[in-house]
């Protein structure tokens, strides 16, 4: 045991080893697996079976629409809830404190979490698409749509995760994290055209409110990817509005990042 001082390990390397433990940790905890990971797919099975009818003219079934919309729900829960409650828990049980006593920088800590959320979201999306294709005959889109899927997915995960980190700062106890974080999640599902489609059934002021938040745009984007072009008539603006989707998500990303940086704490102050 000799003493040496020298250069530090790169943030990227630390992020990777942190991400590895996070993923490992998540998949070993079966409760987390079932409740956050499998839940959206279960919901899709439920909704798809209950509302199996086709929409007029288009020949697209409601279950196919749900499959696309449920992707937004999946990303939202994994990104926002997993990130938010995970951070609150790490803060409460001293994980953050212990890590703060090592050379690990905050970026590498958050990147580790981001690796978890991205892995989960991709696995989640694959599961939902699989259920959509196998159970509800959802057709797979062509290459150009997959490209949209890729950036939409990345931007959605980033936005939801950053907002999750930011919101974790107001979660006082990890026990209440689930309850607190699910309020905006569930409310936004209902007003953003995820559970209730087409969104035009809602009063127009409510659509305006929903348009301020990212979820509506995520759902709309995923429907663009997986549904035939004719389905755009059922969207609020009668169009897919991809440019606006990117813009709104981008703005929320920046808001999330600023809030993150402003509110991040390594430990509970009141302890």
């Amino acid at each position, binding site marked *: 045991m000799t003493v040496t001082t020298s250069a530090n390990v790169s943030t990227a390397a630390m992020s990777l080893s942190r991400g590895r433990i996070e993923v490992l*940790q998540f998949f070993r905890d079966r409760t987390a697996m079932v409740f956050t990971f499998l839940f959206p797919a279960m919901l899709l099975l439920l909704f798809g079976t209950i509302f199996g009818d086709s929409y007029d003219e288009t020949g697209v079934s409601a279950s196919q629409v749900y499959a696309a919309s449920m992707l937004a729900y999946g990303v939202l829960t994994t990104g926002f809830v997993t990130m938010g409650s995970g951070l609150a828990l790490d803060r409460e049980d001293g994980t953050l404190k212990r890590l703060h*006593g090592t050379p690990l920088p905050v970026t590498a800590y958050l990147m580790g979490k981001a690796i978890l959320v991205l892995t989960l979201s991709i696995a989640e999306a694959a599961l939902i698409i699989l259920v959509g294709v196998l159970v509800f005959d959802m057709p797979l889109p062509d290459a150009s749509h997959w490209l949209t899927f890729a950036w939409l997915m990345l931007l959605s995960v980033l936005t939801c995760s950053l907002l999750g980190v930011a919101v974790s700062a107001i979660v006082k106890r990890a026990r209440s994290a689930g309850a607190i974080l699910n309020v905006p999640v569930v409310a936004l599902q209902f007003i953003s055209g995820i559970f209730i489609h087409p969104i035009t059934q809602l009063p127009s002021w409510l659509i305006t409110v929903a348009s301020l938040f990212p979820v509506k745009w995520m759902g709309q984007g995923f429907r663009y990817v997986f549904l035939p072009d004719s389905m755009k008539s059922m969207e609020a603006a009668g169009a897919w509005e991809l440019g606006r989707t990117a813009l709104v998500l981008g703005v929320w990303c920046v808001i999330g990042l600023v809030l993150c940086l402003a509110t991040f704490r390594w430990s509970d102050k009141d302890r």
Partner: protein
Amino acid sequence: MVRYGDTTAVKGVSLRAPRGRVLALLGHNGAGKTSLLQVCEGFRKPDGGTVRVLGLDPVAEHDALMPRLGIMLQSGGVYPWAAAGEILRLFASFAAHPLDPDMLLDRLGLRKVEKTRFRRLSGGEQQRLSLAVALVGRPELVFLDEPTAGMDTEARHTTWQLIEELRSDGVSVLLTTHLLDEAERLADDVVIMRSGEVAATGTPAELTAAAGIDLLEVRADPGLELAPLKARHEVTETSPGEYAITGALDTHALADVLAWFAAADAHVTAVSSRRRTLEDVYLSLTRQHGVAVGAIK
């Protein structure tokens, strides 16, 4: 100075921990040991005063300081679903030149639980893993908060041995403990804290020697009239013919006591003395004022 609300946990503490030495922080629960450590570790900003660790400000220069520190917390903050080996390797991956995790697992007797998840480890095993985590980054300075709490005798001795090796490698160690024998065996310097203040500092030898002889036992004729001696010393006849004189006794006091036995024409058949242990010093310092035996008069 460290405050929690209106409660001042640490005040007016001034201490220097020289390199390559083991400094033990002693004190009751709530004496301010952990608060003091937290400030040194950069987890808390001091509410007053300055702290420099390895010449750096633990809060402002946190990033420069952390690669040089090894911190062992009392509990918490370890991934419950990860295995012992995975956890140690994770922390090793944060360091530029980590120690070999396998070597540490072997040394701390954790090899057989390498693949056991943290939540299934026993308290002592968790504690040993926590120590390994603190050491794996090859730190220059180690903070150990009650390192051997919950360990069995064997693990405790291994830990002591490791700490002694750290010192001989030039690593500085600051540890808190409730175990006086631990402090007496390991520490080069001891700081005794009471209600957030430093009650005494010194090497274990200095602290015990300063108190001189603590107890003198004399065997002589039973039933001696002790009143004249009692005016000057704490003396009792514990059993017929056995006399115990307590309190800090210097050379003059010893001479005075024995001179009294001589003047009383007593046949002294045995004299034994006991030096104060660190425990006696600790207890007399940390007791409430006026409660310590022999300090009333």
